[in-house]
């Protein structure tokens, strides 16, 4: 069955040379034309959401204007009031409703802001990883009772940050020129931390373990665990923690004097590549996970080819031919197994 979207109906109309009346009728039959009730419902929701959003933005602008002059107790009162208000809202709206989920997530997020302001006001001198650990611990009960992928994702991100910061600020402060990646922004800096294979492996265990736990629980049929957002995003992080160091090792082998690179990451990559292809093909079909694994595999093969196989003037041509072959083959295989899964 093919969903009748606007684009699909337009395509049908063009292909069949429908006249204007027939086209309008096709739009009606597709259920794409709104009626009065739907219009009023959408108008109600849109105006409510936009009005509330602008007022919240305006209030935020007011406090931003006056933030430095606010007494610290007023700052705490504002943030704690926001947390309490969000929790009450989540309770009144039911934590399983869309509004309740959003309110509980907002409360969990504001806890972090409160901790940051606390550290700013009292200059506690604590290491930054402590903020993320405390944040994760404080929201843990809400994460457990909240039963939503968003909260679990927030917790996962906090655990990753806490581990990274503990590693590089307390255990093994980085050395070498590559720490200059901090200058390129926090995301690049975080991404470059996997150049230490020990940290990368720990991050891999943290994230891959979370995916395995989620999939095992989901296989037991728990309804709210059927969402694919959490395992896919966490799986992507897990894949990156082994793919990143593998690519760095291939491209700049001489870097191992400065970066902590070892064969562990490539070995883990091969293992996770094989496990992903097996599990998501035969146990729980997920084309996204298979595509990401294939993409990772293509990147590794291309990196090996660039580093070792082709040199000289004609190398772009040969690399292009290899890339076309790899991507074409992967697309063909993915299409075939998607068709097989649809037929099953």
């Amino acid at each position, binding site marked *: 069955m*093919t969903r009748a979207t*606007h684009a699909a109906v337009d395509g049908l109309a063009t292909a069949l040379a429908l006249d204007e009346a027939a086209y309008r009728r096709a739009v009606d039959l597709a259920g794409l034309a*709104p009626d009065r009730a739907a219009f009023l419902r959408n108008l109600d929701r849109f105006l409510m959401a936009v009005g*509330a959003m*602008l007022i919240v933005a305006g209030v935020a602008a*007011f406090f931003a204007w006056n933030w430095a002059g606010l007494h610290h107790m007023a700052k705490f009162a504002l943030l704690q009031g926001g947390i309490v208000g969000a929790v009450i809202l989540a309770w009144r709206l039911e934590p399983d409703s869309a509004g309740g989920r959003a309110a509980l997530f907002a409360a969990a997020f504001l806890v972090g802001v409160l901790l940051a302001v606390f550290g700013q006001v009292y200059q506690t001198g604590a290491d930054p990883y402590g903020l993320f650990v405390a944040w994760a611990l404080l929201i843990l009960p809400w994460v457990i009772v909240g039963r939503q992928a968003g909260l679990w994702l927030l917790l996962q991100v906090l655990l990753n940050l806490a581990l990274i910061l503990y590693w590089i600020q307390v255990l093994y402060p980085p050395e070498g020129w590559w720490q200059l990646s901090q200058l390129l922004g926090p995301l690049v800096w975080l991404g470059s931390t996997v150049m230490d294979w020990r940290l990368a492996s720990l991050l891999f265990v943290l994230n891959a373990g979370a995916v395995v736990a989620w999939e095992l629980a989901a296989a037991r049929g728990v309804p709210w665990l059927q969402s694919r957002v959490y395992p896919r995003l966490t799986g992507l992080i897990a894949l990156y923690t082994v793919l990143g160091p593998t690519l760095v090792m291939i491209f700049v082998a001489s870097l191992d004097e400065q970066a902590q690179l070892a064969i562990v990451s490539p070995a883990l990559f091969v293992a996770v590549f094989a496990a992903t292809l097996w599990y998501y093909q035969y146990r729980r079909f997920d084309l996204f996970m298979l595509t990401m694994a294939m993409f990772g595999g293509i990147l590794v093969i291309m990196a090996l080819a660039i580093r070792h196989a082709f040199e000289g003037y004609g190398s772009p041509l040969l690399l292009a031919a290899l890339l076309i072959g790899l991507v074409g083959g992967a697309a063909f295989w993915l299409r075939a197994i998607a068709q097989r899964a649809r037929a099953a």
Partner: protein
Amino acid sequence: MSRPASLEAVLDGLQAEERLTGPAVADGRALIERLHGVQPWYVRTMVGFGAWLASLLLIGFVAGFGLAVGGSTFLGLALMVTAVLVRRQPAVAANDFVIQSTMAVSLAGQALFAWGIANLLPGDEFKLGCIVVAVVSSAMFVAFPDRVHRVIMVLIAASALTALVYALETNGIVPVLGPVLAGLLVLLDRRHAALVAKGHGPWLRPLENGVMLAAFGCLMLSTIYVLPDLGSDFTFYPQPWISTILLGALLLYVGGDVFARLAGPLRRNARLLVYCLLALLVIAAWAVPGLLLALVVVMLGAACGRRGFVIAGIAFLAVFVTTYFYGIEVTLLTKSVTLVATGAVILLARWLLLQVLAGPGDA
């Protein structure tokens, strides 16, 4: 709006109402069968990545011969023609890799061609480059039958023309560009069914999407002053009120039309109230014309059930408000008052409109 049906059900419905002949139904079924083979976005992204990289490697290989300006122009033209000829083959329509490769080749060809022509002709390179880019992308919009490519062409053409306006030091036109593009979008939307029936469907939707995104971009450029002067040649000081007046007029037109179409016939007083509320909204959003453009786009989307417009309008509003927050031409206190006042007017409008529209006399 009822739940979206399947394309098969639409075809069956048209056949049952005898709007389609037997061969047309067979063609429709064949089209639906082809649509079954469309891959999800992430597979297409992977294929697109490979195709773009492979195309750039091939172009890098050719460019490695060390071409002169004339050679670049010829090579660019050759790449564009090749991309168009390949993309127009019917067999290519189902091959994501070839589609993405031809798109990359086309864009690289356009860049080489525009650079070459701008260097070959006498005069200001930048201005000439803008004109060549606008002309070439307009031609490629027609010649290259791909919806994503067509959206990109509209955006490139609009960007080139906007840059040309700055280069010609006619900055006063810039605040008008966003509302003019929004007006074009409204016009296309009003004529959508007629244009699809005349066989213009393949380019209509990309044009609408491209014009909408270009309107967003032009309005941001002309109404929000975030960065200091980027160069002595350009002046980026915004004039939001010009856009507000023009978009306000457009909002009154679209709002009145949409309410008349979807809310049923209104009493004279109710109609007057709708217009008063819209006018009040325009006044409240005097410094925030992005809100008016977002409302116009969302209303168009809500009126014809196009979720893409609604999502784009809301996303633009969020981006605009965020950027407005960081704008440096207005104090935070003024921003705060503006945002709260606009939000309050919208909530008031919501309450009043729902009261009026729910009335029995207007049902």
